[in-house]
């Protein structure tokens, strides 16, 4: 299964629009200017995704994981280092008593992930005219391997995955994170169909 250059370009453009919205949301939350790099769209076996993510993020990462369902279904993840998590959540937990800081930081990071992922995936769904629903976001602190194992266990379809990765940077903080979307083969195929329809609509306007 391969992405053609035309599909890759269309998907990157679509995700760019979605991630711009996500960046705006993150900027509103943190009060800092957010720089979002152009998304890279690739299709890999899950083992290659594992290697690629391990190269991007070392050791344990904080992951906010949200499952989305609909005609196109999959897993959306916000991945940040512990240091980045602290920077992201600090403005939101200022004033919280020290004995409640850890819980407040977890809740804040989960909500940041929720807003970022729904903004980006929701806008992509909106543009493709495919409604997607989201589950409650889950925050985990674990290695990339453990994270992927928990997603892929008992799911043979996820042997292949579309990896969409975008690096975002808080301009004043030198921290970054990644948004990753993992789709199964069936959803990937549907996504290509929806991309064709989207392109056709664009050309007919």
């Amino acid at each position, binding site marked *: 299964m391969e992405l053609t250059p035309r599909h890759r370009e269309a998907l990157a453009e679509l995700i760019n629009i979605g991630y711009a919205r996500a960046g705006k949301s993150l900027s509103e939350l943190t009060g800092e200017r957010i720089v979002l790099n152009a998304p890279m769209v690739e299709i890999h076996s899950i083992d290659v995704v594992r290697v690629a993510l391990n190269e991007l993020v070392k050791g344990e990462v904080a992951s906010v994981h949200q499952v989305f369902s609909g005609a196109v279904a999959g897993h959306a993840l916000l991945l940040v280092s512990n240091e980045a998590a602290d920077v992201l959540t600090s403005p939101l937990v200022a004033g919280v008593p020290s004995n409640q800081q850890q819980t407040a930081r977890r809740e804040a990071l989960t909500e940041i992930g929720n*807003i970022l992922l729904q903004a980006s995936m929701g806008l992509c769904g*909106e543009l493709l005219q495919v409604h997607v629903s*989201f589950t*409650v976001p889950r925050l985990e602190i674990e290695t990339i391997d453990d994270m992927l194992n928990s997603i892929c266990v008992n799911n043979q379809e996820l042997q292949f995955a579309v990896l969409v990765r975008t690096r975002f940077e808080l301009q004043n903080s030198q921290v970054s994170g990644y948004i990753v979307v993992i789709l199964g083969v069936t959803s990937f195929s549907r996504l290509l169909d929806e991309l064709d329809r989207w392109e056709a609509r664009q050309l007919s306007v």
Partner: protein
Amino acid sequence: MEEAGYSVDEAKDGMEALERYALSRPQVVLLDVVMDGMTGLEVLAKLRGLDPKAKVVLATADVQASTAATAREAGAAGIICKPFQRQRIIQTIAAVEKGEPAWS
């Protein structure tokens, strides 16, 4: 909300929200769309079944117009899109309490 003079009752999930609504009949209900167990839209439908005049505002990070349209069709009085400022919640609740729609 309490600093703005409102009395606030919290529920941890949709089921508890339904129980508390039946007991105290609050003037306005603020529901997250994404919740454990029942979704906010499911709770909205049940609340409106319980009380067709229930004033319900949904809070969501979901930017899809179809989500807002579904909420409107299900009888929501308004929607607040995340991220939001405290003042935005207060303004929305105040508007809905007065019977005005609040669709941001």
